[in-house]
Structure formats: C-alpha cells, structure tokens
C-alpha cells in the first residue's frame, strides 16, 4: 500500500518545483526575476523619491476642471452631492429589492464582511480620492467629497427602505422617472453655471463619456433592431450606418467633426466643440453597441420567441418582455467594455478638437514658466494614465461582479 503525502510543501520546495525545475526554468526565473525587481525598484523610486509631483499639486484644479471659474465651483459641488444621493438611492433600492426577493448577496454578511466587500469594490477609488484631496490646500474639495459621501450614505439608507417595500406600479413608474431626471438635471444645472463649451480637464473626460454612454445606448439598440427589421429600407440603412461608422477610426471622425460642420452650418449656429465631441462619441459608440446587442439578440434561443408568440404576445411585446431582457443581460460585459474604451477615447477629443481635457492640460502645464524644460511630462502622463486606469479598472471589476451575479439563479 502506498501512502500519499498530503503535507503542504515548504516554501523552499515550492520555489524549487515551480521556479527551478529545469535549467531553462532557472534561467528564465533569474532573467525575468531580476528584470521585474529592477523595474519595480525604479518604479517605486520614481513614485516616491525622484518624481517631482508638485507640478500636479500646483495644477490640480486645472487638471480636474480646467479653467472653470472659481466662484462657480459651488455648482460642481452641488451637482456632485445630488449625484451622490442619487447613486446611493439606486444602490439602496437595488439592495432592498434583492432582500425582498431573497437574492441578496450581502444579507447575512456581518458588518465587517460588508465593509470589506465595499472596500474591495471601491477601495481603489476611495484611495485615489484621498490622494487627490491630500494634494489640495483648500477645504472646499474636502467638504465637497465629504458631503457627497454623506449624500451617498443617506441615499443608501432611504433607498434600502424604499426597496424592501412593494410599491404600487404607478409609484414605481414615477420613481423611475425621477431617477432618470435627477442626473439630467444635475448635468443641466452645471451647464447653466458654466456653458458646456467651457467644460475642461478631467471633468470633460468624465462628463462627455457619461453623456456618450447614455445617448449611444438607445441609439445602438434602435440600430440593432433596425438591422433585424423586415423592412428592407430600414435594414439597409442600419447596416450601412453601422458598417460605415465602424470602418472609420474615431480620431478621424473627431477631426471631421471639427472641420466639416462649417460646410453645412453657418459658424454662428455650429455647436461648440464639446457638443461636437459628445455627438461624435455617441454616433461612434452606437454602431458598436448595435453590433454587441445584435450578438445578444442572436444568443436568445428561437424557442423563446416561439413560446412568446404562442402565448399571443404581439411582436413588440415579444421583443420587449422576452427577447430583449435576455439579450441585453447576455451582453452586459461586452457593453461595459465598450463604455470603458469610450471613457479612454475621450482623450482623443482633446487632441482632435483642441479641448483642454485632462491629457491636454497635462501637456500644457509642463510649459508653465516654473516647470518648462524639466522633462516633467513623464510625471503628468503617469498621473493621467493612473486616473484613467482607476476608472477603467473599477468599471471592469464591477462588470465582472455583475456577470457573476447574473449568472446565478436567473441564467
């Protein structure tokens, strides 16, 4: 009889087995190990010792919101606090509904587990916010973030209470309308303080990505449905649009948006550069969303439509109640991926349209008299890359979480 050893190998054994099994393994380990250590040390040295980060802290406002007038900053603060409340309400309502339906993931977790769950999800964002705050020397941003946080917590608590209740359908419908109106209002409120044309810095990247996402989704959905339509003309137009837009680089479209409008519209009527950027983002992303949604529609088995038809549902209701919900659920990760690339692609608008977005501002500040000719572009680019990475990484993690969640119980 053979006995099987189940003792855990010691660290040394593990290293020998996994890193130095053959001479080739040993060489690879040594080469790439030293490379990794070297890069790691140089990176750490750059971030903590050699990097001259005062260019960021001095210009933080310019990087974040561009030349937004100081006495109008309160508008951003108010909008953010409202949005914090809004996001909290939505999170609360969703969590409450899950409790009511018994599908909650966090119910039954201890308070500590919940905190660590939230920490894993949003720790990176919170840490980044704290880092940014630590670079400021005024109390305004601190107060803004504090009140936004408080708004979020209050919203979460109220939302949780609303979510566990079963409301009459007219109340929930009204609620949905209110939840849609709130962010639109916040957007318009900020635009009334400072015209859209003057939105700059990271604010431009974030807000125009958000606007692009919100506007491109319905358009993409319509295009996907158009592509499946039995009406030849509609189908043809949808296909032509999708293929034409997907065949062009976004940068080219943005350059075109910059110059070509003057041919058609008198200069006085032509929309501002920011609006042009948002319109281009929307038209571009919609074509991709259309293809993603089409894939989703194809992934729904034919039997679903047949069953819906057999139950007497009209074609519109078959689509709206049976096919679309399943199709969209299947392609949530792909859609979020598309939105992540839109978020990063907003930097192209800075170059193509000459908007002082985060990337352009990062370049511009290296030309200030205090910093000129010192090679500080590395610091500023690293900072820009870091902010986009935090945003993209967080979105991608949330997408994976959503995917896991939807995989359970409801296919």
């Amino acid at each position: 009889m053979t006995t099987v050893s189940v003792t855990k190998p010691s660290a040394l054994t593990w290293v020998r087995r996994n890193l130095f099994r053959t001479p080739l393994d040993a060489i690879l380990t040594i080469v790439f190990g030293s490379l990794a250590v070297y890069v790691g040390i140089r990176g750490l040295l750059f971030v903590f010792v050699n990097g001259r980060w005062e260019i960021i802290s001095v210009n933080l406002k310019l990087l974040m919101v561009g030349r937004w007038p100081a006495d109008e900053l309160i508008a951003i603060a108010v909008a953010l606090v409202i949005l914090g409340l809004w996001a909290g309400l939505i999170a609360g309502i969703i969590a409450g509904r899950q409790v009511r339906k018994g599908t909650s993931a966090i119910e039954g977790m201890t308070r500590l587990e919940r905190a660590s769950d939230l920490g894993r999800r949003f720790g990176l964002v919170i840490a980044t916010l704290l880092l940014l705050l630590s670079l400021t020397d005024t109390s305004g941003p601190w107060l803004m973030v504090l009140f936004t946080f408080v708004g979020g917590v209050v919203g979460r608590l109220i939302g949780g209470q609303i979510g566990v209740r079963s409301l009459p359908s007219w109340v929930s419908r009204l609620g949905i309308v209110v939840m849609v109106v709130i962010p639109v209002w916040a957007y318009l409120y900020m635009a009334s303080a400072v015209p859209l044309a003057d939105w700059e810095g990271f604010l431009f990247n974030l807000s125009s990505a958000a606007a692009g996402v919100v506007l491109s989704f319905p358009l993409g959905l319509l295009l996907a449905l158009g592509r499946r339509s039995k009406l030849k003309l509609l189908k043809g137009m949808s296909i032509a649009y999708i293929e034409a837009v997907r065949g062009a680089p976004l940068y080219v479209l943005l350059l075109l948006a910059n110059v070509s409008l003057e041919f058609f519209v008198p200069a006085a009527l032509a929309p501002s550069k920011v609006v042009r950027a948002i319109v281009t983002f929307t038209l571009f992303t919609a074509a991709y969303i259309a293809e993603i949604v089409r894939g989703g529609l194809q992934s729904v088995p034919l039997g679903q439509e047949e069953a819906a038809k057999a139950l007497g549902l009209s074609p519109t209701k078959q689509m709206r109640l049976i096919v679309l919900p399943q199709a969209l659920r299947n392609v949530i990760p792909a859609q979020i991926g598309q939105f992540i690339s839109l978020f990063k692609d907003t930097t192209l608008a800075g170059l193509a349209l000459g908007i002082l977005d985060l990337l352009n501002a990062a370049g511009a500040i290296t030309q200030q008299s205090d910093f000129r000719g010192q090679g500080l572009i590395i610091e500023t680019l690293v900072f820009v890359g870091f902010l986009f990475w935090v945003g993209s990484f967080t979105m991608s993690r949330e997408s994976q979480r959503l995917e896991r969640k939807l995989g359970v119980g409801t296919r």
Partner: protein
Amino acid sequence: MTPKLEVRNVVKSFDDKVVLQQVDLAVGLHEVVCLIGSSGSGKSTLLKCINLLVPIDAGDILLDGRAIADRSVNPNEVRQKMGIVFQAFNLFPHMTVLANITLSPIKVHGQSKAEAGERAMELLERFGLLDKISEYPDRLSGGQQQRVAIVRALATNPELMLFDEVTSALDPELVAEVLEVIRGLKDDGMTMVVATHEMGFARDVADQVCFLDDGVVLESGTPKQIFSNPQKPRTRQFLQRIVDAGRL
C-alpha cells in the same frame, strides 16, 4: 357536428424540402388525437402550423369551422384559444414560475395581477408545484419545468391543447409525471393533439391515433386498429421497430 379542429389538404415545404403533403386531420370536441411517426415525419411542423407559428403553403385549417390560416385572420386572436407545449419547455429563464404563467393572462388578456395570480396558484396547486411558485426555471427539474410549461399554456383557459413531443427531452424517470398531467387533462375533457414517441401512452389515452410518414397521414384509426391491426407495411415496420426497442 363540426369537428373542433379540422386540417384539410395542408401542404408545407421549407425551401425544397416538402415536410407536409396533403395532410388531413379532424379532431372532435373532447377528443385526444395522438400523432405518431418517426422523427422528421412532420408531426412538429403540423402542430406549429395549427398554432400558426409556421405559415402553410396550401390547404385549410379550421377551428370551430372557421378558416384560421387565412390572411384576414389575426393569428394572435387564434393563438389565444390554443395552448402549445414544446419539447424544449421554452420557459422564460429571466422570469419566476409565477411570472411565466401570468405573463399572457396579464399582458394579452388584460387580467389583473391578483386575478391571474389566483388562477396560477390554483393550477400549480393541482399539479403539485405550488412550492415552486417563486423559483426561476433553471432551479427546477426537467419534469417540473415541463409541468410549469403546461400550466403556462393552461393559464389562459385554451379550448385546444397541442403537445409537441413534450417528454422527449426528459430523463426516463421524469416522463411519467408529465404524462400524468396530460391524462388528467383528458379526464377534464380537454381537446388535445399530442405528438409523441410514447406508444404506451398513445394506446391508453388516444381516441384516435394518426401515423405520419414523410408528411402524409398514412394511417389513422382507434388505438386498437393501429397498434393491433395495422394495415400499411410502413406502419407495421415502424411499430415493429418500437417493439424491438422494448418501448411497447
């Protein structure tokens, strides 16, 4: 007396392949008709033609003497009088059992949530599924899913039920519970057309058995006539294979 359902000279082909050629069928009120025949003989297509899921090329389909395959007839109106159950269940995976069942009563027949819910609970109770009411379909066994699908079709009080090989996708030990439900419906006097490979069931339950072969009703009659004294060589051959397989 006009039959509940009459199929006259129905022809259907997909591209070049003729699936139904000149099919005739008459189903009286409260009658159970079983369609037997090998796979690809046209049983499923015939049922889908009757439910207007598949348009026919020629012929007539009459429900209570009224031509329903006519262009002037609204198919949704006709479908509301029939229920169909599919081989692959086709439950809606994003909805609970209750939502699956009450969808059509609420969205098509305009019933209130409470009214539709009550009827759903009545049916679920009858078929021993009441404890599954708020489950999602993928949490149920195949037999349970198929029984829910039958309840869903019954929820709108159809006058005619169509069953399209409803036990073919089930594990053998789950077949009985589904057939039991159909037997129960026969006792209620439901008019049914059942496409099936379960010959024992067809023999026990059918008032009329039709043998389909290559898109034609080759032979039809009482179960006794078909199973004990088949006239056509093809029918005998088919039944012999079933017997050899130990399924009759």
